[in-house]
């Protein structure tokens, strides 16, 4: 079945440094839908960005990601981390068959001054 693998555990960065959180996926479907959701402390997950188009960069709130079907990847990047970016980030996978989105294990990002 479908699966999503993310950078494990905790990523700690100093404010101002670039962010890269890895996401790779496995699916039998040729047209996957990839999502990044962010969950801040004591809140629910909410969509950060999503993509369905191969090799097209998607941006939102300073973050960007590009779906690469050739490598089954959808890495999340930001050029300069802010303290407010500290949160739990989930990569999720869906498909045209309307299966419920499957989430990776989540990566906790901690940005320090």
């Amino acid at each position, binding site marked *: 079945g479908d699966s999503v693998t993310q950078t494990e555990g905790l990523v700690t960065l100093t404010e101002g440094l670039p962010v890269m959180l890895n996401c790779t996926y496995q699916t039998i479907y040729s047209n996957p*839908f990839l*999502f990044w*959701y962010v969950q801040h402390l004591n809140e*629910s*997950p*909410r*969509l950060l960005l*999503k993509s*369905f188009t191969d090799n097209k960069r998607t941006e939102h709130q300073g973050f960007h990601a590009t779906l690469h079907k050739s490598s089954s990847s959808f890495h999340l990047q930001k050029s300069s981390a802010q303290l407010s970016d500290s949160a*739990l980030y*989930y990569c999720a996978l*869906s*498909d*045209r*068959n*309307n*299966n*419920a*989105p*499957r*989430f990776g*294990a*989540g990566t*906790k990002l901690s940005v320090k001054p």
Partner: protein
Amino acid sequence: ETAVFQTPNYHVTQVGNEVSFNCKQTLGHDTMYWYKQDSKKLLKIMFSYNNKQLIVNETVPRRFSPQSSDKAHLNLRIKSVEPEDSAVYLCASSSWGGQNTLYFGAGTRLSVL
């Protein structure tokens, strides 16, 4: 206000008891989901409904049973809770289609003593 509303926010109970959680969405969506977020923050799909019809039923213990009266409401009953059921249960909704964004409620935190 349009959103996904869950009740109760918290519930503490003892092993063997029955519990019920409610979810209502006012976003006009036709698809609703139950996800379980455990103590390690793993987010796993349990059930999804489209227009009151069960679409996804993951491998969950039979003591879990969802119910949907209409496309705006989705409830979850746990017949005889076990310690491993302690988690946050997140309700979400979306429009039908794998490319659509999930909107999450605030969650119900269940503690089984």
